[in-house]
């Protein structure tokens, strides 16, 4: 059952990533683009975890954790730069 369900979930995540790319392209303001990049990072974490289940490896979690960390830090850095004019005050 899982082998039939994983491609459906992967299709849903890929469509969500395409919608994020659409918002990243047309985003009328820079904050919209930051939000779209953050959501794209989260979708890529989900795709990595799904492909880990699909291949049965069980060893891609460090990669997912690293991408989560980088997504959060880049979002906070860009927001702080736009908010205060400086990243670390």
């Amino acid at each position: 059952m899982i082998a039939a369900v994983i491609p459906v979930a992967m299709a849903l995540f890929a469509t969500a990533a395409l919608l994020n790319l659409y918002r990243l392209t047309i985003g009328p303001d820079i904050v919209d683009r930051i939000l779209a990049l953050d959501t794209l990072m989260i979708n890529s974490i989900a795709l990595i975890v799904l492909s880990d289940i699909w291949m049965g490896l069980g060893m891609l979690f460090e990669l997912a954790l690293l991408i989560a960390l980088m997504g959060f830090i880049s979002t906070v850095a860009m927001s702080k730069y736009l908010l205060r004019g400086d990243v670390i005050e």
Partner: protein
Amino acid sequence: MTINVILEGVISFLLIAGGIFVFIGSLGMTHLRDFYMRLHGPTKATTLGIGCILLASMLYFWGAQGKPDIQEILITLFLFITAPVSAHLLAKTGLHLQLPHVDKTQGRPFELRDEEIGDKPVPHPDRGHG
């Protein structure tokens, strides 16, 4: 690698539910009209969806390898902690940049009064203009 049928059904349900939640979150971020509305989709629906996916992954590898894995709980905890923080920072940035909003969005926090822009001098509340 033998997995119980009930556990397999639970894992499949969690995978489909997570995919639908993440898709709804991205759909909301694409189709809503306002940045303050668009912020709702990824911060709530996408976080719940990624929680479902990581829970399904943890159950799968628990059933397949016989011992529970702690790393998925670590990723889930990290994402659930950091999603409100980044949403708060993005909302503050949007308010600071004074992004346009539609009329039905409530709250007008950054409208400045005339004297704050500098049209006429502001008297001190105790000393007047002295």
